[in-house]
């Protein structure tokens, strides 16, 4: 008897050990690659951010603690540029992020009705997402060129070309249009998959209750695609706080050196040989900016969190199913 118990215990332990071993086996390729190519560089970046560091003059590296971070709150050209750029990006994001959720959601909703040829529509809407930002720049730069040769100017205003890429407000509008065209696809695909996963019977239940389309959407559709909506929002938010590609490629010579977003500041300063003595400071800026992005994602997560209660139809449905 007791031997059997001990044996079973041993088996259990063996089992657990095996399980753990297997788990480690499954995760280890990911973790290994992640550590080498993400964590170590990040740690190095963090250490650098605590130093006065110049890659071309390693001997003069000095540890200065959090001074680099404090610089961001001082009165200096870096702090001025950084906060200004962050402000610009946030203003853009307030418009862009909702656009990039609502438009894909709307399109996914339309597709979910399965009109004739919806598979082709679906492919076309997703198509721009596969091209590179360089090509987006070439395309939208040509369509909205300042020159009278740009398509829109040639069509509507060849006498007096509109400076789409030089005027700040117009340029941001072009950037927004390009972003919508370019990045709707990814969110659209994820959301339309989620929509298809909503059980039909839920809709029917609601319809029977005489719910309107809007009610149906708010009480049935939204709660059921929450998980995907969360992924989409999280990803879009991070992507657009890290705005870099679009303002870089959609540019005229006149705005060449304008810094429009924190990422542009970080990239430009990091890629400037003359500023190599500020590498520590720029690393600190990048990490600090990462913390700001993190803060925003926390806020997003908090807002998306399940409020107790949920949808009444869902509860009803579950009850019915039981």
């Amino acid at each position, binding site marked *: 008897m007791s031997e059997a118990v001990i044996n079973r215990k041993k088996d259990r332990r063996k089992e657990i050990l095996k399980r753990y071993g297997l788990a480690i086996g499954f995760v280890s390729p990911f973790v290994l690659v992640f550590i080498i190519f993400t964590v170590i560089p990040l740690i190095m970046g963090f250490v650098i951010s605590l130093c006065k560091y110049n890659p071309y003059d390693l001997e003069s590296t000095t540890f200065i603690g959090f001074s680099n971070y404090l610089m961001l709150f001082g009165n200096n050209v870096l702090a001025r540029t950084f906060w200004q750029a962050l402000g610009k990006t946030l203003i853009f994001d307030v418009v862009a992020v909702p656009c990039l959720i609502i438009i894909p959601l709307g399109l996914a909703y339309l597709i979910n009705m399965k009109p004739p040829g919806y598979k082709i529509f679906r492919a076309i809407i997703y198509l721009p997402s596969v091209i590179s930002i360089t090509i987006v720049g070439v395309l939208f730069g040509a369509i909205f060129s300042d020159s009278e040769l740009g398509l829109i100017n040639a069509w509507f205003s060849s006498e007096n070309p509109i400076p789409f890429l030089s005027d700040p407000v117009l340029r941001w509008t072009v950037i927004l249009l390009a972003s919508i065209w370019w990045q709707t696809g990814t969110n659209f695909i994820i959301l339309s998959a989620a929509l298809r996963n909503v059980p039909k019977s839920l809709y029917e239940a609601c319809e029977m209750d005489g719910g309107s389309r809007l009610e149906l959407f708010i009480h049935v559709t939204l709660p059921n695609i929450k998980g995907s909506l969360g992924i989409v929002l999280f990803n879009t938010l991070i992507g657009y706080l890290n705005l870099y590609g679009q303002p870089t490629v959609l540019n005229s010579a006149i705005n060449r050196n304008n810094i429009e977003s924190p990422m542009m500041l970080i990239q430009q300063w990091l890629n400037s040989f*003359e500023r190599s003595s*500020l590498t520590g400071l720029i690393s600190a800026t990048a990490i600090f900016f990462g913390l700001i992005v993190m803060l925003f994602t926390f806020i997003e997560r908090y807002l998306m969190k399940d409020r107790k209660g949920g949808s009444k139809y869902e509860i009803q449905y579950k009850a019915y199913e039981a």
Partner: protein
Amino acid sequence: MKKRTILICGLLALTLASCDTNPYDDPIGGGGGNNGSITDPWWTTEGELAFDGDGNVVLDEVDIHITTVVNGDDYAKFQDIVSDFNREYRGQINVTTDTVNQVGFEQAVANRINQNSNAPDLIMSHQKGHKSFANSKLIQPFNEIFDELNIDFSYDNFASNISSYANLDYEDYYFDVPIDAQSMVIYYNKDILKKYSEDGSLPTNREEFFALCREAQEGERKTNKSFNAVALNTEEEFFFWYIWGTALAQNGATFYNPETYKVEWTEPNNLQAFKNALNSIREFFYSDEPISIYGQNLDSTNNAFFNDNALFLFSLPWSADTIFLGYGQNHSGLSESQIKEEKIGAFNTSRMFALDQSSPNATKIYGDSHAFALSKTVTDINKKAACAIFVNYFTNNVDVGIDWAEAGHISVSNAISSNKEYQDSFFVDNYINNFYPNINDFVTAGNTPYFDVTFDDGVYAIANTLLREETDRKDASTIASIQTDVNDLIDML
């Protein structure tokens, strides 16, 4: 739990409080402090050279790699010159090249040298970036290898202004071998000019230039409504680099203080010079009788010139072939040599922007200069010798000088420029010499380790912001605010 939180917060506050609020506030600066003599050389040499009976060096299959900033039509020309060289030195030296775009050139090359990963042996790029290369100990001087090879090198053998920038302020060290110079130049339509200038002669100063332009404009517009005397592309960086730079130079502006490298644009005299330079350009676009339109891009200006809608075209010296071709496409029945000889002439920006024509600055032309520099990663003396031989070949061989001039770059080496064959070659005689009437009037940004900050973010940004304004109402305040940012940054570097 709470206690721990308080403790952590307290510790954090303490750490933060103990931090220096501005660790970069160092008046001496890291980058600028390397002037003068070198006590501790950062380069080394290995191996020994073999000489033959005549005292000539013997090299056996030495490969060297050149990274250049040249990447337009002139890169093909550069490759031609390199293959000529390779043919001549077959079995001894083999040169390979690659090109890196202007934007990011310094960073990319510096990184490659510093990490010794794909580092070039020889760098051919704008001289203005080489000061920071030397300060960061990325390049080495040519002195030792020139001595070994008995190459008699001296900056006296080069155009005076250009060579004065090339020594990078390191006494007695030759870090840079200057090659050429380039700036914005002017092409003109000979047919139209003849109508308004009796013997086809060109204006000799700003006043005459404007008078001619206005006369031509008045005359031509009777039959051609879309005529503007000057076609000037303001939408590319070259406008800010070269036209704006020349306007500043001609009006006596000082870009930065050569001692401290800080900018002093708000000094009363300097501010006046900046304002004059701005106004001298504004007169082209915003006066009662403007002679050009602000905001035209390369295509509009080229098209205007090709279709006889402009008398003068401000463009780049290395675009000559494009311009001949474009003009030919719009005027059928002309041979290329006819266009070159009879239709399109060459002119320059000297005196064009100086409000005070009596000033010695009035004839200055501001631009860039390419120079060779030797990477510190080259340690093998045979490699160094190969580099030195190539550099010497490029700056002394007359055929190379002619080829390179045809790519639009005037030679600054006296050995080439004083040569009769060079002077008599068609392109030099008809174009290059008219583009730059006196090479000793040519000025560049000089030697500041903070070129990007001072010029890209400073000098050029001023023009970018202010030239779109029709009046000088905002000039002083804008210049002052940009100056604060630039000096602030220089303090940090």
